[in-house]
């Protein structure tokens, strides 16, 4: 969920029992182990790839920060004697780090930041979170704890016991911190001549970096006090603050009054927007031919919607992707074939008869069989070996299709992303979804974008063609040699056009001379004539060429951008069960609760409970009956009436012809059941006791009946 901090990564797949899980839950045990290991190795690949991508994305930000840190205290050391520096008030260097609202992703950034700092700049980095620091005292404790611990890591372990002893009774004040800092830096100074220090990369003296992870959640007073205190000691303790900001830098002024913010020397750093981040991740993970596993259209749409509508969290997107992989390998027995091309042959040959039957059952394969001639049909359906050969060929085709698909998609994106109003979407992911969904050339948006493409000017067109050539050249597919040639031919034609155009310049200048005539009447006449001629004029050479280019692109699209689910055997490589994913990632607690109470059969799978429409079955659990009855009430519910209704429902089956005599006195057991059900309902938050009327409870939900 948005900004909900999830517990650390699923342990499930790491444990040893997982392979058994795969096997036990699926009756076809043969390939389970292999599938599990394929899945794991694939995920490891993807994980390392994403980490690399994210590292690259953060690099710029981190570099900027490091250079800021290097500036911050060096200046004072160099020219401490200068007049301006003596006069100037010494502010605490502060970096305001605007990271966007997806708080869950910040952890990763901060971790890499503190790693970088600790490796290169200073061992003294403290990460503070608002929830640990309700008061200045806790903040100081946390800060000193973190700083002094890291000093142990940096130094040898010999004086560990000394630190531990002192830490329990250390005074959490700034002066003891300063004392500690002095002793630590002096120690390293004295060590310098004697031994080669591993920490020689640290700056001298190393600054103390304090990172406030979530600036918004800190209370004003704590921050103010801390800043005031540390500003008094900035001469002895080279402190640098880093504020992690999720909203906007305005929050600094909102949290800190001028008298405090004037103690800071704030510089702003902005991280990459999370949308761009996502685009890069999609580009590198999904639109690459590295991984055999692919996402189907609906699944991708679910993931993207979750990102855009709810959380803006790239981490969650990747988690969702991971879930897709897991689900695919778990639920699809044929996913054993979802591997790199090199392993494919071996795996296909080792397929069992059951697995071959599985292949025959795939809808896309059945469609394929139906199209074949009768002799081949029989062979496919009866001979396993022939089926295997055919499967191998088809899967290879599918891989090739994917290579080509990506390259052509990128080319198309070059065109569509420069059109006004972006009829096919601005981002390549929109285009990707559109192409996966159905045959893109049949959509209206595609029509209109072709129309617009026919109106592009020449320089744009030429640069786009050049980009396309580059994309196609860099792709691994071999089929594009001819296409590249064709595109290059277009380019040379444009070149020739230009030369021809320059020759024609002369005639234009003569036109201009015509226009120079000062006679208004003549001028109008010539202009009209010109207009006429333009309208009736045949298409110029350039326009002809432009049409040709657009038509060529169109035919590339028709050839290569066929939706994946039209391809045979796509079920093996593409994961497309969006409902499962939605259920896992976008849970609806209220709906689930309502379903459970309103229609217990949904979860209990008990045939007896199956009921139709609004009727209330007396077989249902008590709480369901009570719930259904309460749906029919208003804001205040009379307990006595409720109990009566409950009794009627429960007794309905047992004694259809119950006497009136028994109805007066409610059975004690039924009474107890009713009370228990009502208190359960209260626990779930549907009702609460009311003080307005005796023997009434208030409903806390509206709607129903």
């Amino acid at each position, binding site marked *: *969920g*948005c*900004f*909900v901090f999830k517990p650390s990564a699923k342990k499930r797949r790491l444990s040893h029992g997982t392979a058994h899980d795969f096997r036990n839950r699926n009756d076809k045990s043969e390939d389970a182990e292999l599938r599990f290991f394929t899945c794991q190795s694939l995920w490891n690949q993807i994980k390392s790839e994403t980490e690399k991508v994210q590292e690259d994305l953060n690099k710029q930000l981190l570099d900027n920060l490091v250079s800021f840190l290097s*500036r911050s205290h060096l*200046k004072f050391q160099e020219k401490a004697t200068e*007049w*301006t520096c*003596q*006069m*100037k*008030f010494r*502010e605490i*260097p502060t970096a*305001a780090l605007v990271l*966007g*609202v997806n*708080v869950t992703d910040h952890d990763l950034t901060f971790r890499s930041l503190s790693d970088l700092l600790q490796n290169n700049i200073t061992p003294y980095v403290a990460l503070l979170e608002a929830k640990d620091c309700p008061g200045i*005292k806790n903040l100081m404790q946390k800060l000193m704890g973190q700083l002094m611990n890291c000093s142990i890591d940096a130094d040898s372990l010999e004086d560990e016991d000394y630190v531990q002893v002192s830490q329990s*009774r250390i005074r*959490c*004040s700034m*002066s003891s911190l300063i004392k500690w800092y002095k002793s630590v830096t002096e120690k390293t100074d004295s060590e310098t001549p004697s031994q080669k220090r591993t920490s020689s990369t640290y700056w001298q003296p190393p600054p103390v970096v304090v990172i406030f992870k*979530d600036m*918004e*959640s800190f209370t004003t007073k704590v921050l103010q*006090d801390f800043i005031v*205190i540390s500003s*008094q000691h900035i001469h002895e303790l080279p402190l640098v603050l880093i504020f992690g900001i999720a*909203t*906007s*830098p*305005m929050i*600094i*002024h909102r949290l800190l009054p001028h*008298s405090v913010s*004037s103690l*800071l*020397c*704030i*510089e*702003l750093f*902005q991280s990459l927007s999370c*949308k761009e981040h996502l685009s890069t991740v999609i580009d590198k993970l999904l639109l690459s031919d590295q991984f055999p596993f692919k996402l189907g259209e609906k699944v991708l749409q679910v993931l993207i919607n*979750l*990102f*855009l*509508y*709810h*959380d*803006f969290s790239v981490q969650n997107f990747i988690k969702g992707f991971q879930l897709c992989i897991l689900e695919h390998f778990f639920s699809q027995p044929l996913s054993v074939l979802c591997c790199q091309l090199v392993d494919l042959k071996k795996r296909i040959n080792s397929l069992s008869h059951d697995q071959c039957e599985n292949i025959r059952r795939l809808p896309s394969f059945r469609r394929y069989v139906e199209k074949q001639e009768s002799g081949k049909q029989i062979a496919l359906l009866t001979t396993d070996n022939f089926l295997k050969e055919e499967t191998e060929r088809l899967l290879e085709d599918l891989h090739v299709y994917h290579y080509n698909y990506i390259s052509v998609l990128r080319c198309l994106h070059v065109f569509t992303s420069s059109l006004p109003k972006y009829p096919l979407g601005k981002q390549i992911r929109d285009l990707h979804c559109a192409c996966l969904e159905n045959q893109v050339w049949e959509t209206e948006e595609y029509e209109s974008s072709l129309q617009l493409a026919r109106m592009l000017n020449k320089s744009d067109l030429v640069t786009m063609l050049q980009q396309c050539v580059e994309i196609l050249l860099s792709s691994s597919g071999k089929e594009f040699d001819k296409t590249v040639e064709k595109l290059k031919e277009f380019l040379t034609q444009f070149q020739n056009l230009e030369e021809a155009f320059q020759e024609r310049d002369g005639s234009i200048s003569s036109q201009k001379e015509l226009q120079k005539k000062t006679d208004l009447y003549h001028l109008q006449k010539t202009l009209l004539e010109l207009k006429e001629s333009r309208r009736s004029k045949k298409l110029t050479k350039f326009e002809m060429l432009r049409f040709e280019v657009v038509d060529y692109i169109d035919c590339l699209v028709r050839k290569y951008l066929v939706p994946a689910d039209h391809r045979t055997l796509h079920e093996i490589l593409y994961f497309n069960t969006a409902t499962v994913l939605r259920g896992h990632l*976008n*849970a609806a*607690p209220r*709906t689930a609760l309502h379903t459970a109470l309103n229609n217990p059969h949904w979860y209990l799978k008990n045939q007896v409970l199956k009921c139709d429409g609004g009727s209330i079955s007396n077989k249902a659990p008590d709480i369901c009956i009570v719930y259904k009855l309460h749906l029919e009430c208003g804001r205040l519910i009379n307990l006595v009436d409720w109990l009566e209704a409950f009794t009627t429902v429960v007794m309905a089956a047992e004694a259809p012809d119950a006497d009136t005599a028994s109805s007066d006195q409610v059975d004690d057991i039924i009474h107890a059941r009713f009370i228990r059900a009502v208190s359960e309902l*209260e626990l779930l*938050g549907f009702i*609460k006791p009311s003080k307005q009327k005796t023997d009434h409870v208030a409903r*806390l939900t*509206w709607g129903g009946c």
Partner: protein
Amino acid sequence: MPNLEHPAYPADALLHLESLVPCRESQVSMLLSIFGERQQFSFPSVFIYGHTSSGKTYVMQTLLNTLQLPHVFVNCVEYFTSRLLLEEILIQLQSSSSETEQTSHVPCDTVNDFVRLFKQAVVSRGLQDQTLYIVLDRAEQLREMEANILPAFLRLQELTDSNVTVVLLSEIVWELFRPNVGCFDPLTLYFPDYSIGHLQKILSRNHPPEYTADFYAAYINILLGVFYMVCRDLKELRHLAALNFSKYCEPVVRGEANERDTRKLWKNIEPHLKKAMQTVYLREISSSQWERLQHDDGEPGQLKGLSAHTHMELPYYSKFLLIAAYLASYNPVRTDKRFFLKHHGKIRKTNFMKKHEKTSNHLLGPKPFPLDRLLAILYSIVDNRVAPTANIFSQITSLVTLQLLSMIGQNDQLEGPRYKCTVSLDFIRAIAR
């Protein structure tokens, strides 16, 4: 101005002191006469108040240091608990006496312990026959500690039965300190703000060595002309003066004007200072960025200040949630039906309604609303159907942590939580676009 005179102290020390505390001579002489001679008992507690940077701390420090009076100087913000504060006083007492390694740390939790340890420390330092001064800076913090701390400090002389004077420095008046139960009233002393003349005099004192005092004084004059309206903080002014001085000297360095050409120099610096007032002074851009700008001769427009980055990217539903929260906060409940229902019937204009509509709801501030109302408005303003998924609910909580909404009264678990929208109309407008 009368020269400082006091029989107990040597004249040259007094003269030196006078040169260090410009424009505060009368306060210093007042303090001196309160303190009396070294061995004389002084008033038990003195309360000094005055606006920010009116020289309270500086005067006290210079006075005690130049005359070498035994003293302890503690900032109450820094030592935020009573225990830390009391221990710090004792540590300072002990460390200044014996030059040996730090004396063993004695825990001191209560005032009772403090009085005992304090007496020991005084004896060990041999200060029985001198007045010891304990200066508590930012004394307003004392009010937040245990209730007995402040009265105890006020009567410390009586409690310890030794020659000690407690000086409290604060920015607020004594009336805001006075505890309910009877306590000893200290002698209060007011430090008035520096006037523009005083500021001019003080700022001009430390001129850079390479320029003459007159030149710098002219510069300070211009600076005060621009900044005096908004800022009387001496520290801040000095900071600004140092920041902008290099720009002021530029024409002189380039040889376009000489040091006496004040008019030309004024023309050069005045727009620059005005820009500084809008940027550096408000901490919109940092002083180091400002210096770099000056150095490169760039336009400050290139660098956007902190307030310029108001734009915020929010997920789709978070935007709608925030808009719904805003509507719920500023619209009265009874208009909901009118605004958010498709068939709301006729709008009846009654006098009753008009009367209330007169005061703008924006002036009254946001009102709390229950969660259900927020969701109901959300469903009606989003075009397509919204499922109440866990993601929606978690977005509400995350908006609370981002301080865009605030939660009110969460003691009753069953009572639906109530929220307030804390963002401004401009922000909502920017989001709604």
